[in-house]
């Protein structure tokens, strides 16, 4: 088995809870707000 295949096979899978959270509308609405805030913070770093 080549190294890429072996690494992929050995990598962790998301838990059922993680998979549910990725699609849960309420949880993802909160993540939408949080990610936008994080991205906005990122955008303001560095140019002047």
């Amino acid at each position, binding site marked *: 088995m080549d190294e*890429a295949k072996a*690494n*992929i096979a050995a990598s962790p899978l998301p838990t059922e809870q993680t998979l549910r959270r990725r699609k849960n509308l309420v949880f993802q609405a909160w993540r939408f707000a949080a990610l936008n805030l994080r991205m906005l913070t990122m955008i303001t770093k560095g*140019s002047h």
Partner: protein
Amino acid sequence: MGCTVARVVVLGAGISGHTAALHLRRLLGKAHEVVVVSPNSKWNWIPSNIWVGVGKMTTDQVTFPLAPIYKRKGITFHQALATALYPEGSPDMQSPHVSVKYTEPARLNETANISYDYLINATGPKLNFAATPGLGPDGYTASVCTAPHATEAAAQLAGVISKMKNGERQRLVIGVGHGTCTCEGAAFEYTFNVEHEVRAAGVRDMADITYLTNEFELGDFGVGGMTFSQSGFETTSKLWTESLFRERGVNAVLGAHVEKIEPGVINYEQVDGSKNQLGFDFAMLLPPFRGADLQAFNAIGEDVTSEVFAPSGFMKVDANYTAKPYEEWRAEDWPSTYESSRFPNVFGVGIAFAPPHQISRPRTSPNGTLIAPAPPRTGMPSGVMGKTAALTIYDRIKMGPAATAHRASMATMGAACVASAGTGLRHGSAAAMTMYPVVPDYQRFGSTGRSVKDTFGEIGLAGHWIKYMLHFAFIYKAKARPLWYLIPE
């Protein structure tokens, strides 16, 4: 003392050039002229070409005509290809100018010289399909680099899905078609959007999907990978990406330089020097980039192209181009003002500027083949660079040529990227990532090169909503609708 009347010429109307032109027009009084030269009649929100490529959007949804926008905003537009720069003037024309050849149908192939006081080179990439025999829509593989290419890719994909529905197993290969390609993030996006569509079509078990890349490890993305803080541990983008590949059953071929493509067969070499073949029924491989084919001449007509542009065709700016090994690369090597190293009133922004070197560690096979992801210049940094050059030019027009340049180095700039992994307001997903800074600074941040607090990745439906929102937001901004400038680059 500033200029009473100035003309700023922007070459290119992509994310960087169009952003620069709009900001210049917004800031400068009507006495000053803002000119855009672009061979394309339409603006393209390239990040959404991925969705055109899987048939979820049309060309009309990701492009719009430039001329009406420029007319409304008072920007002079030449639909033409820039061919040569004369930054010192020429025997025929004393003022600095650019030669252009029209692509506008009414003036097709006519040539003209356009003088300038300031020039922004935002010509973006030349899609160098010719670097790999058989690569591209004129060869045997699809592309999503332009909206028309992506439309063709979607049609081919639909054909492959149809075959799978008829019981024929299909091999789908997506990735990059040369050892020095960039935009691995886009290839990653297209891979998982294709996987999503194949699964939604109910034929996932009939598809072998392989990601073929020049990255040495998954999660490199041309930026040397990232380290995230997750659940109290530091995790790498390598592990995070490998997990997604395992979850979605996608294979990977790493460290690959595609040498030649024949009907149904990709011939490639890997970093260890081995030569292999990969059969395909559908393949989308991105081309490597070169700079636009621009020449430069001095006042007496001597060719000074090599003084202004790197051999790659990208414009040399305020970067440290001294050749040195990976271990000696520094964050300070990267440019911050984007001023031409040769002419202070000329700027190179977005993909048009010559990077000092890669970001990821370059590798060479025992056969001497360079396999090294080129540094990505994604939408956000490109827009910031365009605005930065515009602000500098504005200050110099107002206050004189000695006005301090604005700065925005990729080594002090953060970036946010959203890599779609499948569409659908209820069932889509995307990997939302931030990194600070884009170019790692190991002196400042230690072994990870970046702020672990500010470097982050998350997969979920929210990421898809963000990418979808950004599609509309950036098209609104690019159309210069009311308060467009409040939307950050």
